[in-house]
């Protein structure tokens, strides 16, 4: 397989895999570690993970594709998650999400052309008593209205 990864990146990948091998049920922590380092799960990671855990690449693909969190390609520089669940819907969350997507000209999971922001749906951030809620990277925001959303998008460079 042709690889775009540098030798240094491949070495880092190895180290992340090795660091998790002692765990009981190491695969999810390993994938989180890889995604934290590389921003996604690069295709180059599949063979060494499968080999280290003695599972088939089909099994590995099954796991990666099952979970919403794991990406095959890098996201934008920031990830905006907008809650779509019932408590947020009860206070206009759906209209907020639609307005945001249409303003950016995106569908769910889309990234702005300048690569600044990827917008994703999330089903509950546990901020149901101060809905509608959103999260820019790890920063949570409650009672989001369009003005607040615009502010967040401007800050993120969208």
């Amino acid at each position: 397989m042709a690889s775009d990864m540098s030798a240094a990146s491949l070495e880092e990948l190895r180290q992340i895999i090795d660091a998790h091998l002692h765990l009981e049920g190491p695969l999810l922590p390993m994938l989180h570690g890889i995604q934290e380092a590389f921003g996604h799960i690069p295709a180059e990671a599949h063979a060494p993970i499968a080999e280290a855990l003695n599972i088939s690449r089909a099994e590995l693909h099954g796991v990666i594709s099952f979970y919403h969190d794991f990406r095959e390609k890098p996201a934008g520089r920031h990830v905006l998650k907008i809650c779509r669940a019932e408590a947020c819907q009860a206070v206009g969350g759906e209209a907020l999400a639609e307005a945001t997507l249409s303003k950016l000209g995106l569908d769910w999971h889309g990234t702005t052309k300048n690569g600044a922001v990827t917008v994703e749906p999330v089903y509950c951030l546990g901020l149901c008593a101060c809905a509608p809620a959103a999260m820019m990277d790890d920063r949570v925001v409650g009672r989001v209205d369009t003005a607040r959303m615009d502010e967040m998008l401007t800050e993120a460079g969208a």
Partner: protein
Amino acid sequence: MKIWVPIDSAAKALGADAVTRALAAEAEAQGMDVEIIRNGTRGMIWLEPLVEVEIDGVRHGYGPAEPGDAVGILSGDSAKALGPVEDLDWMKRQTRLTFARVGVIDPLSLAEYEAHGGLAGLRRAAAMSGQQIVDEVKESGLRGRGGAGFPTGIKWQTVHDAEAAQKYIVCNADEGDSGTFADRMIMEGDPFTLIEGMAIAGLGVGATKGYVYLRSEYPDAIRVMRRAVEIARHARVLGADVLGSGRAFDMEIRVGAGAYVCGEETSLLNSLEGKRGVVRAKPPLPALEGFLGRPTVVNNVISLATVPVIFEKGAQAYADFGLGRSRGTVTLQIAGNVARGGLFETAFGISLGEVVNELGDGTATGRPVKAVQVGGPLGAYLPVSKFDAPLGYEELDAEGGLLGHAGLVVFDDSADMLKMARFAMEFCAVESCGKCTPCRIGAVRGVETIDRIAAGDAGAVPLLSDLCETMKEGSLCALGGFTPFPVMSALTHFPDEFTGQKEAAE
């Protein structure tokens, strides 16, 4: 001068960090000597950020605070003054057992935790045999707070009696239900309670290892829990010799990956093992063949976090609260379109109407309440005519509802119930693990059938009922099995919205 500003996600989401910076800057400018402590939230989310200032040994509240309120709060002359926090109606009406310390202490101060009753339960348990520990939990009447309401002591007994070289305690912290945030609140506000509860469970059933499966949507809770485990290990609350008892228990925090179905215990176990989060058929019960095929206690955060207070105060003292077979307290989470949302811990038995109208003070929009979804995305929509229903497991079941994790999402009269029913099916289709057909295909057909009804095809209504029956009876787990609750309750209580008239007229 001691000042508290919550570090809870909900408070942060409403600007608590900016308020903290403003207070610190203003105190420095005035040359005041202040100590700012970041506490958990008291649960009065409509008052967040709720700043507390100690005056003559009593904590006075100011909220909802903005950075501009810093000067007034420090001088004691602020329009946001609420008086002593403990005297607020919302606080006085509660029976805070599980959440006694949340909002009071610095979440990561083990010394404060101990000063407020922490570790007393574990010390008592450490002097008891495994069977005595299990008996105490049975006697308390504690039932699983994650939603199913299964008696916790019976589950522990099964694991206790199982013979195995290694057993596990797994905490289900995959709180994915909309309208619920009690797990998040306690993990961020009093993490040692959960650690202590898991350690007691470990001593009780003979498990030396525990895992918290915590959803990735809660980055703040993950940070707090990880740090708390390190602190507990350092203080020998965890490790080879728990509090000098000669018995071992240690634990790890594991992060989920955004799959709702992993809140179902067998999917969670598969996920923890590094597999697709697909549901397992039961039997075998996880209590006998759980994580890595070994005997495993799987309990919700609130169930485990309630164990320490049961051991501190005694099983009977806990069982003295409640109604019927629902013993102890319920941690209500009041959310959605509500004027005063938050967490309210009280004995089982309070009525739905009292919660929504008196505690919640009606809707945030000021419009009439139309429905309340109780128990998360898989719970029923209850109309105002059901407001007399007492909140207890069996009591709500009798009304065709589901208490679940005790989240209540309020909707005003602008809610479109057909759309909410459609969303329930859509959500089930997105989140189905795919293992069983009624859920995997039924949910997709459910969306299509509701679309037909919306387009004016009244003949599709019986089809929807029939489909719901199949999903209910034929699904492996609660995702497919309970999605019919919101759908059928919307259809039953708001039949006028399923005639297709509105769309047909447009």
